[in-house]
Every structure is written in structure tokens, then in C-alpha cells.
């Protein structure tokens, strides 16, 4: 992160950012061309919403009586339920209290949804799409970030959460969960090792760690959810969508109880979304952090370096 004094002169620091801002623009243009070629419809759903998805660890910012979206997920699934088969959106999302070298409270997400897909189909599509876009941007085979040289050619690595813990963490997944140390172990021991030779999909998350994902039929202890890591950076989160409205309502109620215990703002139950979920076809969806991808493209170590104005400069 840059110091306050460095922010004083717009012209000075924005000139230094010109390269990253240019890469951001090219990346967005390339993504849009790709999605158009795949016959996706670009959509816009409201940024200000009355009832965000209740999640245990994501807090929305209030906007009047409503809230700013933490992701466009609920609106986009209503579109899938209404019969739009392939949709994508690039939009601003807001999460209270998230600020660090890789976090901005206002950031840019790309989300896309495909009717009829499950999470495996989506991993394949994500891989093919990013390889094509990276190639168009001059990264034919390799990418270097923070002294790590990655191979980009297919196939990318796929590893289950349980295997990744066995490989990299000092304790097994079961023990980390029992000790309530999952996030600590993941961020300290597992994440930094993921995607360092080539991009890695971490998949099959413990079922309680997937608020809106479908549980795997062959193994109900895990959810059909994945995350994409590149050079240790968390880039994208996707899953087979839960389409059971009753189960989704139960999970939301549980999340609301946990939130209440933390004195977080109460949300109204997203009833219109639950109505839509009851008729939604099987589908898979993914959210990808645009700012983090631009960090990789621009060889930037801080997310501040890839946006024109971090909040502290406003």
C-alpha cells in the first residue's frame, strides 16, 4: 500500500498506474469478446438491494433502508430461473471492513452462470476462458508474479480441499475443522502454496462452508464448490447451485442466527430469490475478482496499484 504522502499528487501517482489501468481495460474488453463469442448475455442487476444473501462472514454496507450488494448472485440466479441460459455481469460489489493488500471494500467482480452446468463443467470453462484471454493479452504460456513463474497451459491443477490440507497443512482437514482452525490453516499454510506452478482449482469444500452451493450426492460431507488460485492469490469462487429452496431457506436462517450473535445488521429473508430458486434449473455460477486478476497481469503486489483511487485517497 502506498503512504499518504505518495497520494498527494494525482498526476504523479496516476501516471505510475497508467500501465495497470491500461491492462485492466484490455482485460475487460477481452473478457467481453470471449463471452460474446460463447453466446453469453451481458446483464446488469441492481447494485442496491433490500435483502442481500445472509452469509456468516460477509457484511453488506447499508444504503438508505437497503444495502449495497456484496455480489450480484441473487439477481443473476433469478434471471437463470426465468430462463436465461448463459449470463455474465461485471459490476462493483461492496463488503464492509475488508481492507488489506488484497482487499478493497469496493471492488469489481465478474460473475457468470450457465444453466445445465455443474461445478466440474464450470472449472473446465473457466480454465479455457482464462487461457484464451491471457493468450490474447500476450501471456501465451507463462506468467510471472512475485518471483513465481507459472505455466498457463492446460490442464490446470485440480486438488480437493482434503488433499491440499494433507499436502500442505500441519494438521488434517478433519482436525482443522474440529478445532475451528480451518480459515487460519487455509490462509497460513495452504493458500500460499496453491497455484504456484500452474493455476490450481481447490474443490470439494466442507459442506458447512458453502452457503449457496449444492451438497455432493456421492459424499454429503462436501459441497460442489471450488476456488481458483493463481500464484497463491484467490481469484475465483464457483459452485453447482443449490436449487432446493427449502434447504436454502434453512441455511439462510442459520446464517442470520450467527450474524445476530455477532451483532451484525439483520437482513430480511430474500423471499423473491427463494421463490425463483424453486423453479430454477440445475446451474453453476462463478465469481471472479477482476482487481486480483489485474494484479497478476500488472505484476502488482498491492490491490491499490490496480485501481485509480483506493478509498484512502478520496
Amino acid at each position: 500500500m502506498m503512504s499518504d504522502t505518495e497520494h498527494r499528487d494525482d498526476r504523479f501517482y496516476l501516471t505510475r498506474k497508467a500501465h495497470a489501468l491500461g491492462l485492466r481495460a484490455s482485460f475487460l474488453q477481452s473478457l467481453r469478446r470471449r463471452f460474446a463469442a460463447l453466446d453469453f448475455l451481458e446483464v446488469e442487476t441492481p447494485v442496491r438491494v433490500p435483502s442481500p444473501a445472509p452469509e456468516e462472514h460477509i457484511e453488506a454496507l447499508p444504503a438508505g433502508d437497503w444495502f449495497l450488494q456484496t455480489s450480484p448472485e441473487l439477481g443473476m440466479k433469478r434471471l437463470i430461473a426465468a430462463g436465461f441460459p448463459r449470463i455474465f455481469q461485471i459490476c462493483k460489489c461492496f463488503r464492509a471492513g475488508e481492507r488489506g493488500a488484497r482487499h478493497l471494500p469496493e471492488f469489481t467482480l465478474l460473475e457468470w452462470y450457465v444453466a445445465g452446468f455443474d461445478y466440474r463443467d464450470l472449472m473446465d470453462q473457466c480454465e479455457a476462458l482464462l487461457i484464451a484471454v491471457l493468450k490474447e493479452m500476450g501471456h501465451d504460456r507463462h506468467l510471472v508474479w512475485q518471483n513465481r513463474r507459472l505455466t498457463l497451459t492446460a490442464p490446470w491443477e485440480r486438488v480437493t480441499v482434503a488433499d491440499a490440507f494433507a499436502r500442505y497443512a500441519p494438521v488434517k482437514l478433519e482436525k482443522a475443522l474440529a478445532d475451528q482452525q480451518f480459515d487460519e490453516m487455509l490462509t497460513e499454510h495452504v493458500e500460499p502454496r496453491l497455484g504456484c506452478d500452474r493455476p490450481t482449482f481447490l474443490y470439494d469444500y466442507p459442506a458447512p462452508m458453502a452457503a449457496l452451493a449444492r451438497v455432493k450426492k456421492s459424499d454429503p460431507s462436501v459441497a460442489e464448490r471450488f476456488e481458483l488460485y493463481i500464484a497463491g492469490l484467490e481469484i475465483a469462487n464457483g459452485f453447482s447451485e443449490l436449487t432446493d429452496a427449502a434447504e436454502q431457506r434453512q441455511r439462510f436462517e442459520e446464517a442470520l442466527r450467527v450474524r445476530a450473535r455477532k451483532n451484525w445488521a439483520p437482513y430480511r429473508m430474500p423471499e423473491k430469490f427463494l421463490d425463483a430458486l424453486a423453479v430454477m434449473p440445475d446451474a453453476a455460477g462463478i465469481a471472479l475478482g477482476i482487481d486480483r486478476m489485474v494484479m497478476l497481469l500488472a505484476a502488482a503486489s498491492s490491490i491499490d496499484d490496480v485501481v485509480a483511487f483506493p478509498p484512502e485517497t478520496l
Partner: protein
Amino acid sequence: MYTASDLRKGLRLKIDSDPYVITEFNFVKPGKGQALYRCRLKNMLNGSQFERTFRSVDVFEPADLREKKMQYLYKEGDKYCFMDNENYEQVYLSEDQVGDAVNFMTDNIEVEILLFEDRPIGLSLPNFVELVVTESEPWAKGDTVSGATKPVKVQTGYTILVPTFITEGEKIRIDTRTGEYLTRVKG
């Protein structure tokens, strides 16, 4: 009390009855997971350091630290004596507590004594001090390359690099934060 969202580099906390300063700070959070606050903490009494990861539910006690202007009087054994000019009370710091500040401390200089729960634990100097050059190698004539420097000794015994035109007996201004020469003081 502080909450986790108050944590940042430079914040001073009380942990297990000792004052600590956060020397490194990282916010980490898996997208769907909980926020974690990874800190490197330095004990302000003995300098020992450790890393700890906090959660958003954690709360912290601020360290009761304040600074008070005092005057340096003299060194006695391995203790440095300072006086509070308001109440003439005297306090002592050890060599470890004074540290590198000794390089810039002249008799009667005014410093900020750092107090933890009213006990003196360290000091901070003015950003700039003026000291007299007491020893200087003769300046080799003809060495007029601009930016050329030579080592000299100042009245505290500290050795510092200065431009070659500085001579013994002159007064120079020094930045105590970097320990570097700033300018010659005329007079």
C-alpha cells in the same frame, strides 16, 4: 478497548501486562471465510517479537503509554538520569532503554521520556540536534569533488560522514531519525 478493526501498524496494545507495538500488519480473508488479522508484535520492554493471528471477535486493551518532556542530566554507572522540569522528579533509564539515542544526547538536552503505566521505558529525541565536531582528519587539498564525504567525530563520540569542507570546532545539524548529517550551522 480496541476491536480487531482498529488493528494497524504502529498501534500499541497491552498483552499479558506488557506493552506491545504492531510492527507488521496484514488483513487476510478467504472470500467466503472469516476475516483474520495477522500481526507481528514487538514487546516494548524487552524487544522480543512474535506473530499472532487475531479474529474479528477479539478485543484488545490499549497500552497506557504517554510521553513527558524531561531534561537529560548525567550518566551514573550504567544508568542515565533525566529530570522532569515541572516537578523536579528524577527518573532513570538503562543503557538498553536509551539505545542509539546516546549518540545524540548532550547534557541538558530536552527529550520525550516514554512512560508505560507511569514507569519510564524509553525516550525519543528531537528530530534534529546540533553537535560540535571534535575530531576531523585533515582535508586533502584538491579533493573538491562535490558530494565527497569524510568521517568526523562529534562531541558525543558519534562518528558521522560529513562533506569534506567541515572542520574541527564547527557545529553541524544532524537528523536523529537517520543519524545523518544535514547542514553546517553558522555561528
